[in-house]
């Protein structure tokens, strides 16, 4: 594997301009100061209760995501490029979803095979011909971006269902500003704190036509045991909206109400952090106790907006992902600004053959997987692991895609033995309202804390960093 591009010290080892001030500052710091601040940060995180839950670990109902105190910095120019690409991509995603659930021009044009949509378990036939307010499907997108060279950014994944992590983007910044005020004094870092405002105004702008002048927004959470519960309560608080669970809502005559101490109160927009499968036991999983019976019926009647819309999973399906460059071209007639990682679709015979022959070089992912589960990282796996995965792949080729092992860029990170390069990715959050798309300058940088590891997922031991966009 090629040597990874380092964000601070470019390919020739020279300091890259965006990192100049940081590098000087790091050199002035006494050696144990970073470790001291790291401990301080951890204490703050624990005290504030910024935790997440890991499923399947009995003792770990709540864990901290490790926080690295060295920020990741992008220049204003780099960001402008990314921002353009993100807006373009999300615009296309929304048009694609509208098309798939209506006239299906893209299927008729044979750009995407029919069965990839219709056989897909995340495709929601309930949404066929169903209009959603203002044609917005993906109100909140978290697009995962990796970098492999000075100008090479790739989209790794389009999270179009209920992307999480934005609370870390906001809290990481707060904590950094508290711990390193003089570092901020040396930089002009674009603020991220207006994200909740931007989110609320996007959500309000897509209220159904029947809503009152001041639409009521609520955030629907599965509850305190959900891994992202902290984020849900944090966002509800920042948005100033009620954090509701399924049992707080009731549907009457196709309208949604919340139970309050003053009786029932109508809800117009629901930012739901609950997957499609669970939102309404009458339509989807009957065993779900998290959802609201009748919610889909109200949604169909157009009295409530769900953000994100039902059925958006089809757009972040990893097999559909491989068609994204064509999707952008088809709807916008533009060249995609952000590249896709080259992807082999195991459902296609030739691709499968290639993948089976190169398992030890590739990353193979489940089409519907997330959170770093159910994947094979060829170069980091044993022979036995590869063979076990081969069997799975042959049995269900449609369930997998494969990509080359990318040399994700690295960023200096505080480790036990001082600063060392660690691989990072970036998840910016793209908001789509009635008539505009907003990206707050920044995002969540995830960092693989183990030396050489490419797995940045928090569920797999990855950490996070504050992400700075320099305002030049």
């Amino acid at each position: 594997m090629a040597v990874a591009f380092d964000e601070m010290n470019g390919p020739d080892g020279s300091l890259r301009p965006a990192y100049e001030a940081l590098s000087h500052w790091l050199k002035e710091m006494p050696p144990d100061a970073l470790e001291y601040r790291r401990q301080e940060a951890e204490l703050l995180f624990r005290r504030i209760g910024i935790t997440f839950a890991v499923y399947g670990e009995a003792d770990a109902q709540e864990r901290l995501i490790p926080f690295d105190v060295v920020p990741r910095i992008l220049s204003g120019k780099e960001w402008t490029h990314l921002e353009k690409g993100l807006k373009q991509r999300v615009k296309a995603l929304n048009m694609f979803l509208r098309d798939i659930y209506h006239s299906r021009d893209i299927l008729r044009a044979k750009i995407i095979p029919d069965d990839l949509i219709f056989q897909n378990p995340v495709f929601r036939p309930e949404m066929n011909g169903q209009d959603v307010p203002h044609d917005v499907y993906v109100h909140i997108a978290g697009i995962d971006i990796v970098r492999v060279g000075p100008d090479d950014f790739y989209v790794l994944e389009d999270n179009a269902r209920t992307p999480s992590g934005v609370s870390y983007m906001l809290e990481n910044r707060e904590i950094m500003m508290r711990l390193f005020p003089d570092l901020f004094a040396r930089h002009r870092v674009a603020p991220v704190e207006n994200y909740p405002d931007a989110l609320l105004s996007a959500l309000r702008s897509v209220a159904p036509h029947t809503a009152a002048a001041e639409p009521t927004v609520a955030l629907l959470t599965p509850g305190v045991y959900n891994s992202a519960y902290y984020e849900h309560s944090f966002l509800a608080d920042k948005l100033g909206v009620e954090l509701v669970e399924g049992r707080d809502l009731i549907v009457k005559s196709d309208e949604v109400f919340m139970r309050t101490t003053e009786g029932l109160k109508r809800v117009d927009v629901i930012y739901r952090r609950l997957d499609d499968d669970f939102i309404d036991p009458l339509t989807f999983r009957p065993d779900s106790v998290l959802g609201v019976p009748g919610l889909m019926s109200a949604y169909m009647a157009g009295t409530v907006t769900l953000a994100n819309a039902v059925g958006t999973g089809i757009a972040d399906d990893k097999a559909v992902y491989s068609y994204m460059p064509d999707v952008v071209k088809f709807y916008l007639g533009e060249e995609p600004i952000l590249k896709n990682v080259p992807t082999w679709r195991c459902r296609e015979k030739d691709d499968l053959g290639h993948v089976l022959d190169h398992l030890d070089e590739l990353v193979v992912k489940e089409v519907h997987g997330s959170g770093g589960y159910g994947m094979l990282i060829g170069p980091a796996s044993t022979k036995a692991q590869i063979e076990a995965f081969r069997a799975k792949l042959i049995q269900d080729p449609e369930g997998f895609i494969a990509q080359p092992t990318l040399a994700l860029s690295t960023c200096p990170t505080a480790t036990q033995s001082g600063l060392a390069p660690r691989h990072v990715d970036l998840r910016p959050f793209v908001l789509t309202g009635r008539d505009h798309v907003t990206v707050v300058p920044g995002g969540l940088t995830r960092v693989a804390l183990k030396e050489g590891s490419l797995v940045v997922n928090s569920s797999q031991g990855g950490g996070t960093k504050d992400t700075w966009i320099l305002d030049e």
Partner: protein
Amino acid sequence: MLSRTAENLFWLARYVERAEYLARTIEATLRATALPATYVGKTNEWESALLTAGIGDGFYKIHPEADERSVVDYLAFSPENPSSIRNCIEAARLNSRSVRTALTSEMWDTINGAWIELQQVWQGGVRSREDLTKFLRFVQETSLRFDGSAYRTMLRNDAYWFSRLGLHLERADNTARILDVKYHMLLPEKEHVGGPLDYYQWTSILRSVSALTAYHWVYRETLKPWLIADLLILNETLPRSLSSCYGNLVRNLDQIGVAYSRQGPAQRHARGIRNRLEHSHIDDIFQHGLHEFIQEAISDNNRLGEIIAKQYLI
């Protein structure tokens, strides 16, 4: 406000209040048992502590006998006792987590900090009386900080009023229970008044509601059983008296009623109890039967809890 949020706030305040009350009960019992037997008689103070907390049945399912070790463990740490101090703090934290948006950061910090300390310092219980004293102080300080931060930082809106309702309802229940368990000691004719035995038992009642000094300020007399009952039931200046709790319950319910422009059965029921307390005299209460009076107070109080739940919380 969401009904569930109001319910969580209401119970959160109850759990914190209950934890403090249990800590006080243990502390008062410790003091009583430290006295030579000639002062406290042959009563088993630990048994009486269990009864005061109203959890004797559950205890005897696990332990054959009530002694210091088993009772302290059961009241303070036992996972099998649903209202042990540990369970109260854990439940309070869980409730806080689900209503974080309704709490101020100081309140959250207090509960979350206490929960962390509980896990880190008190996970294994206590090994000595010194430890126990530290633990009890920790619980009382948590409650003080929580109450204080609520008082100082919360907006005076329904979130505040519902949490105050929980606090005063729980407090009234605790005071009534103490009186009920000790009522036989409060009967004036039973023992020869002023003997060391009942003197120290009465002190322990007052200590468990932290009203010993208050007694002397109010009555400027030696301890007299009917005055103790008067203080804990009818004296509105004592924050833990039934009268004071009901004054607060009525006030908070009225504030909710005004904010929502609607009164209901909860307001009427609370006002009814307060009016009765206002017009009672301690002599009449003794005449009518102290035990009966307290029993009625406990069930009236439970009833108010049910009515509040029905009117607002579900």
